[in-house]
């Protein structure tokens, strides 16, 4: 019978889903605009040209971020928040050796903070509903990843070349972040 699928479909429709108050579409649009501004600002950071050894550091981005694995929107929000937090923390460090325009860096931080603030208002509700243990492992991996970057910077004594490497890495991260915002959909 060709119409057998109707009944389960109808039953599915009857199942009422819990109303999620977080307006993910709005959040997504907000994050996207800020993120693109961040990327632009990051690219503008051009310090004094300096020859640096070809130091291709592999900081080992967590796989699920790099490959933009399928995320639930709540998990995506948490991951994005975590990434923004660490980005903010890293760029607070001493970058005097680079000769970057401070205003640009400050602007970048303002944008990052803005994104975080938008997420924070939604995070409270997300944390109320969310009870996934998945998020924990990814967030732990993210912490380890950013710790590697911090330790690298510290080891290289915040030199210009080290900052250049980190700048490139952060650009990559923001690109990943952009991809992650795709999952913030109602």
């Amino acid at each position: 019978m060709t119409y057998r699928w109707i009944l389960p479909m109808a039953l599915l429709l009857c199942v009422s889903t819990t109303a999620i108050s977080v307006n993910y579409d709005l959040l997504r649009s907000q994050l996207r605009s800020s993120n693109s501004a961040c990327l632009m600002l990051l690219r503008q950071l051009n310090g004094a040209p300096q020859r640096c050894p070809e130091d291709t550091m592999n900081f080992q981005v967590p796989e699920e971020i790099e490959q933009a694995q399928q995320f639930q929107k709540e998990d995506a929000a948490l991951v994005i928040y975590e990434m923004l937090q660490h980005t903010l923390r890293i760029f607070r460090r001493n970058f005097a050796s680079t000769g970057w325009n401070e205003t640009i860096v400050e602007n970048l931080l303002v944008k990052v903070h803005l994104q975080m603030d938008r997420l924070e208002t939604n995070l409270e509700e997300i944390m109320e509903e969310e009870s996934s243990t998945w998020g924990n492992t990814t967030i732990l991996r993210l912490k380890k990843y950013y710790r590697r970057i911090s330790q690298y910077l510290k080891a290289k004594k915040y030199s210009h070349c080290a900052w250049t490497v980190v700048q490139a890495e952060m650009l990559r991260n923001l690109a990943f972040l952009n991809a992650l915002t795709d999952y913030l959909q109602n």
Partner: protein
Amino acid sequence: MAYSVSHPAYFHNVHNLLLRYLNHHLDGGLKLFTHKGRRSQLRGRRSGAHRARRPPDSLPGARAPPAQPPRKQALDASWFDSGHRRPSRQRSARRTRPAPGGASSFQPPSLPPPPPPLFPKPPGAAARAGEGDAELEAAPGATGNRKGGGPPEPRGLRTTSWQSLARRRGTEEAARRRSAAHAAGPTLARLPLSARRSPVAEDVTGRASGGPQMMLAVLGATTLMLVAGAPWVLPAAAEGTNLKSPQNVEVYIVDDSCILKWSESDEFVSNVTFSVDYQIPEIDDWIKLPGCQYVTSTQCDFSSLQLNVYDEVKLRVRAEKGNDTSPWYEVDSFIPFQKAQIGPPEVHLEAEDRAVILNISPPGTQDSVMWAMDSSSFTYSLVIWKNSSSGEKRTETVYPRDKIYKLSPETTYCLKVRARLHVQRKVGLYSPVSCINTTVENKLPPPENIQIDSNNWNYIIKWDYKYENMTFQAQWLYGYLKKFPGKHEDKWKQLPDCENVKTTQCVFPRSTFSRGIYFVRVQASNGNNTSLWSEEKRFDTEIQTIILPPLINLKSVNGSLRVYIGAPKESENKSVDQPYRLTYEINFWENTSDTKSKILQKKTDFTFLNLKPLTVYCVKARALILEEKWNKSSDFSDTVCEKTKPGNTSRTLLIAGICIALLILPAVVYVVRVLWRCINYVFFPSSKPPSAVDEYFSEHLLKNLLLSTSAEQIERCFVIENTNTVSAAEETNHAGEDYKKYGSQTSQDSGNYSNEDENSGSGLSEEVLLQGAV
């Protein structure tokens, strides 16, 4: 029973008891042994035909002391009279079975097959012994008859004494040993391992003469039994000698201090030390924890390990005493970061007249490993109360560097702070309570009630001030700086357009600030004195003067109405960010009635439940900013109305009805088709012959039928003889009529036509030719 088998002193006690009994009964003239000997003698004798094979040596009774001959002889006589084994076995059965648990309970778990007798035993007896208790139990009959005189009593006594002993001891081992002691000879085959030896011992002791030798025999038997029983008893007894692993093992992690705590399993055991090992994922082996090897304390601090706090760690602990070690107690693997508890933060206070300046340091030390990546992620909540009076407590969420406002001057306030990590759902411990006195009221109060407005080109800051003729200045700060602990007093920047303004407001262009979050503060001065800074007002550049009304989307779902509040339409092209923390005031009413209910909601997606089905409800909403007495609201949106759907039951019925209808549809279609065909058949028949007819009559058959009435086939023939007649032949058609003239002939020929086709044909052609020639 006074103590369990596992007690070490048990063995000694059993042995002593045996000796005591043996001694006791020795005085009684070795009744035991004679009795025993008699029994074995009887057993040996009762092997029937194989009686003779049993060597006199194996019969201890044979060497019974001379003191006993009369009895023995009597017994012998009786024995010979009876000539059966069974009663003796019965006797032995009676002897052994009353023991609680019976000899059967002593059966070693894996009964070895009866070993080949080391000395010639009646094979039947051996076999019988091998069968074990079943045999004993099967033994019927009364033994009393045979015994006649003396033996029953003493035997009975003896049995009772053994039985009572068994009852008193009540252990399997003791009874086993007893039965083993009893069961010399054949029944020894039941015994494990050294069982073979006991007959030998019996044999040896049997050879010796007299009671002392019997005693030695029994002693030897018991010691051998002890040795034999060791494999079974030792594990049980081992508990007494070995240590138990520690209990209540827990991991406590607060900030950077990681402690493993446990408790001793047995408090009475002294001089116990503990050792702890750990394991990390990279290394597959357990590593000894330095500083926690053979320690006497019941806790171990493993903070010094400098573990990777985001990686799993496994720990195990055990107790030691001398050379004994308990088994390892393994703690489930854990990730230190996940187990860690946030410790108390450090709070520094500075007092103003109506405010207290906070300086909170994050939990852990400066170079904390645990919170290295999270130092700026902590959110702090504070509880403050007046020390003096009832102490109404006020809870606030604060930044690491913040101010608590709305306090009274010259009052003592006490507060405590705790840190929180929202994403990890961790709540920290409260800091110790610290108190401070607010200062005397300042002459110049700070400006109050700061509000920030904006229009399309400028931002406008407005505030209130008590006194007139003051100059004001405003400063701003990057919002993100507030997240970080530490001083940022020097990071405040002047607002250029707000320096030394005389009015209680200040206007500056939008271009001053790029999109983001900032803080603004205002200070008043009148030349000589300056007031303290006002409250730090949070300033989000996304705020607009005009809040556009939201878009409402209604959906009726199953007896309830779902409301979606969407972003307002914008006239401009660029996407305007909605001011965050918008509250929506929703007016909700039934279309027919006039009573409206108002709801304030922050959510943009919610449902009105429990509505009347099939009624029209209307909704309109407006957006508000309810922030610090700043009442900004948009206009009301358009009213949207929607009818609610029927209730649950009717809805399911409806769906069921639809489904059924859809299922029936193909059937209906089929029926209709059949009907149509019927109608067609009845009212509009086709002129075609039925197909059956077609099939039956093939083409050529039909044609033959038809052709039989019409003219016969005329063959075209070419006559080779006369070249002139070629043309004539072609005109056979025309000649067909002429042919009819010769009907008689032709008819004849037609009769033969079928048979003689060629001949008639040629004949015909000849006639035609003839005709043609004529």
